[in-house]
């Protein structure tokens, strides 16, 4: 099989799951009306498949900041952070993230994906070991692969299993990086951070926590799982993204280890790409300010999360263990999930469809992402529609 035939085989496999010209992956959004509504084809749909957790995509403060940055600094930096791509805003945002997490150092990356790639591949290399949760995001897997370190997985959210695998490493624990996530993107469950930290301290390892989905969502000021658990000072490196609760694109890493600064000189995903555009940085800075004082947004978000999680649970859907902004209905077969996804769209609700092997345990997911801008009526409509469609997937 040549290179192109391999892609043809992948296309054939994909078509078998997505018949009738349905395009669940990469569906075109024709117009966006607000943080909760858009047009897909001829339908005005309710958006339940975005990561806009605080509902800030149209926040006037962010839009105005982006406009001003474009007027003042142009559309792009046209260069790497290492060369001409570090403007005042980039450095200011790094300082603001460091301040937010009470850390001495912060680095901004061009995407959240690159934040993990750049941090992991900068911290570990050949001969080192990374111990990662089995359900880690692809950016973590890819960062580990890029690093050349040995990659060992532990069972998802199972601290005892992590400890067992750490023990097997023997002396190699001295050069082992443990990686976990604040909220996992598939089922919306949270890492057992206290248990992980207890073990990492016992073995003397370094811990990186990815707060991509938990930033803005957990904790009084929105720091994430570190704030919710009161364990901020016990985590060595925190990464995250701007593309969820901060409503732009980019990523960051913060730490109290001064060695973080060296990543600027050894991390290819930081060096060999253009820096975020001035407008992106400006809107992110404005959004971070809103996030920090956004306890009312978090309150509304959790009210919405609880409302939908409770209704789906009562209807009989199998869900992830923790209520939260990521609420995934777990279905047995890809065909069930596709049917549910299509039926929801026919009821003007857009959600995410996740099929194996992307979904854990060989299951398929119809995943909702709730945000603070959803009204109680919108959430009620989504819950009622799921209830109406329950017979499609009843076991």
């Amino acid at each position, binding site marked *: 099989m040549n290179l192109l035939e391999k892609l043809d085989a992948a296309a054939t496999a994909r078509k078998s799951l997505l018949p009738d010209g349905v395009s669940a992956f990469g569906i075109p959004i024709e117009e966006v009306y607000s943080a909760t509504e858009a047009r897909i084809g001829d339908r005005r749909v309710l958006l339940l498949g975005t990561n806009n957790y605080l509902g800030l995509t149209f926040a006037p403060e962010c839009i105005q900041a982006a406009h001003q940055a474009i007027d003042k600094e142009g559309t792009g930096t046209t260069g790497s952070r290492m060369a001409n791509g570090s403007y005042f805003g980039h450095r200011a945002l790094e300082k603001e993230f460091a301040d937010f997490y009470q850390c001495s150092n912060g680095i901004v990356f061009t995407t959240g994906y690159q934040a993990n790639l750049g941090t992991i591949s900068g911290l570990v290399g050949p001969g080192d*070991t990374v111990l990662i949760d*089995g359900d880690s995001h692809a950016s973590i897997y890819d960062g*580990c*692969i890029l690093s*050349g*370190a*040995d*990659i*060992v*997985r532990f*069972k998802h959210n199972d601290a005892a299993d992590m400890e*067992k*695998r750490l023990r*097997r*490493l023997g002396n190699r624990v001295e050069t082992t990086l443990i990686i976990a996530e604040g909220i996992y993107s598939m089922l919306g469950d949270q890492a057992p951070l206290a248990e992980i930290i207890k073990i990492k301290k016992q073995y003397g390892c370094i811990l990186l926590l990815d707060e991509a989905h938990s930033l803005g969502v957990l904790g009084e000021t929105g720091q994430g799982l570190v704030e919710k658990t009161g364990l901020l000072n016990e985590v060595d490196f925190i990464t995250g993204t701007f593309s969820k609760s901060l409503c732009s694109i980019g990523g960051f890493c913060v730490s109290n280890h001064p060695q973080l600064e060296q990543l600027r000189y050894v991390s290819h995903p930081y060096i060999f790409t253009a820096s975020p555009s001035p407008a992106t940085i400006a809107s992110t800075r404005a959004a971070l300010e809103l996030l920090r004082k956004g306890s009312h947004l978090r309150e509304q978000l959790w009210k919405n999360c609880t409302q939908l999680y409770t209704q789906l649970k009562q209807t009989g859907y199998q869900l992830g263990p923790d209520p939260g902004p990521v609420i995934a209905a777990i279905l047995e077969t890809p065909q069930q999930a596709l049917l549910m996804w299509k039926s929801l769209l026919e009821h003007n609700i857009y959600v995410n469809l996740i099929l*194996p*092997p992307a979904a*854990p345990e*060989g299951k398929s997911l119809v995943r909702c992402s709730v945000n603070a801008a959803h009204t109680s009526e919108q959430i009620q409509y989504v819950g009622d529609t799921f209830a109406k469609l329950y017979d499609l997937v009843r076991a």
Partner: protein
Amino acid sequence: MSETDYDQIVQLLCDRLTSLSKVPEVSIAPETNLITQLSIDSIKLLNLIMEIEDTFDISIPINALTDIQTVGELAALVHKIKSAA
């Protein structure tokens, strides 16, 4: 570690792969290709590696799987790591 140990690893892998394979009609042997003949997806393979790690109390870095194509090659890798442990 003796040749018998290698044979035992092969047998264990064959037993587990029989239940994981999407192609039940394929008779699994050391030369059987994990991907092209058994259609084992990446997640199932990674979970199988965790099981093997637990069975033999060893660490198998998943990056070591890059060059593994067949059941026999996987058994040889497990054998090598187990022998060095």
